[in-house]
């Protein structure tokens, strides 16, 4: 089949994954979207591997690596989400903002020189 079809599908999957990562508030949904993005990448790699007729099958080999790493990462990520949920009773990313800076203009030190 022409190369374009898997590429388009991969691109679509990737875009959906991006949307999910950036716009969904639930942490688990974000992890799912990350998985989507990784799988899109996998599809891309395999498609190009076949089209290029690589001798070493480097694209497919790389895909195996990506699958493994994705599995490990999702395991870790879900563990973190679980612990956060236990501590905070929420898994909404909006509410996990401890590292936020205080309001920009409030609480400035006074640099006016004294006379």
């Amino acid at each position, binding site marked *: 089949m022409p190369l374009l079809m898997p590429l388009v599908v991969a691109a679509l999957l990737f875009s959906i994954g991006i949307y999910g990562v950036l716009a969904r508030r639930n942490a688990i949904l974000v992890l799912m979207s990350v998985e989507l993005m990784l799988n899109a990448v996998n599809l891309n790699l395999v498609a190009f591997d076949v089209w290029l007729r690589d001798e070493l099958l480097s694209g497919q080999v790389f895909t195996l690596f990506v699958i493994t790493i994705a599995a490990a990462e999702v395991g870790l990520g879900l563990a973190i989400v679980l612990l956060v949920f236990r501590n905070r009773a929420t898994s909404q990313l909006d509410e996990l903002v401890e590292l936020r800076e205080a309001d920009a203009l409030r609480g400035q030190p006074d640099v*006016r*020189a*004294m*006379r």
Partner: protein
Amino acid sequence: MSEALLPLLLAVPLAGSMLMLVLPGPLAERIAAQLGVVVAGATTVVAGWAAAAAEDVDVAWVPSLGLRFHLGIDGISAPLVLLTAGLTFLCLVYTLRVRPAAGRLRALVGLVLLLEVGMLGTFVALDLLLFFVFFEVVLLPMWFVIAQWGDDTVPGARVAAANKFILYTLLGSAVMLLGILLVRAETGTFDMVALAEADGAGMSRGVQILAFLALALGFAVKAPMWPLHSWLPDAHTSAPTIGSVLLAGVLLKMGTYGLVRIALPIVPEGAEVLAPFLGAFAVVGIIYGALACLAQRDLKRLIAFSSVGHMGFVLLGIATLTPVGVNGALFANVAHGLITGLLFFLVGAIKDRHHTADLEELGGGLYDRAPRLGGLLVFGAIASVGLPGLAGFWGEMLALLGAFDPDPALHRGYFLVLMGLAGLGVVLTTVYLVTLVRRVAQGQSVARWRDAVLLGDATPAELAVWSPIVVLVLVLGLWPALLLDVTDPVVRSVLGG
């Protein structure tokens, strides 16, 4: 031996400073002042010897960058080295008897000695980056001196003043560093002697102008030149007595010394183009400083603005680009260091006794309460006016003479106008200083001080510190050749070549 003199000059105070760090706490606290005096005294002796007999030191420092540890002393730097060593010595002798309110003498002495290393290093460095290093070394000790031992009547004021001082001066130095790097990029060397001899070769006119602008900005903040002067009044108001003396007596000279040693010889075309601006700002500073003094309420702030005015004369002398003008600038440098140093000592003594430097609260009648102190204050004021016969006159006069007949590349009519305005500044200086004498020394004491029992006249220890300065002011005033014989040959060769 004579090659080791200049490194020794820097090593002695550094060793003293380190000693303060190393000695055990209680012991150090007890002998800090005495040790400081010994070290400073030794430095003064070495300085005198070095001024007479030292040879240049030129060792490779960072060969890959082309940096060399190049030290040297000549007619331009010798008087300033002696001034630095002398004033630091007198300051430390002063701390023997007049302990600072905040205590921690060991730290103070250590910092002052470190400051001395920086000041002396600036005057003897002959490599641009080495000069920059020493230029910056003085900033941190001075920050500590102002922020930790300064006047704490208004809480937070001393830290704010110290912050302002260090940030402002650092900004100027950063710009100056850019200038130095520009010079290096164009000529390939950091060595001041070689660059001065090259007389601007290898740098196009535009580059020279840019380099001079960058260098001069850094020096102008230090000098201080109007309108980059506003760090000075706050720093002086908050600084302790010896901090003010060293700040006014030596640190300000580093800026003008830099102009004479670096900016004028290395980028002469840039100097020619920008000298009129320098002259204009200098004259504005003279008049502005005098007028600001007339309206001040705080005694230390008043003397600080008078410094702006006096350094205006120095800058005017430099702006004329003539041997006369530069001779005058160098003379005025030394004279101002002595006279304003003395004035800050006296004002510090007055402030210590009355716990205020506010003119309204002090009232008049100092002649009555403390005749010697009042008399010395008047002497300092008259010297500051620039009376012929005292050291302040010759520098200002030679600067004006330089403006009367400036370098042929400069517009004479313009400089004659500047000269006239500077003359007006002389009259205004007289006005505020005699007004000061009238308000503080003459008249009747206000009720608050009339009954106070603890206000003593100048103690023998204080007089011992101030007398050498008074004598030097008189000697230099009556025998200007003492200094001019030293500076004139070097200035002629620097400007001529």
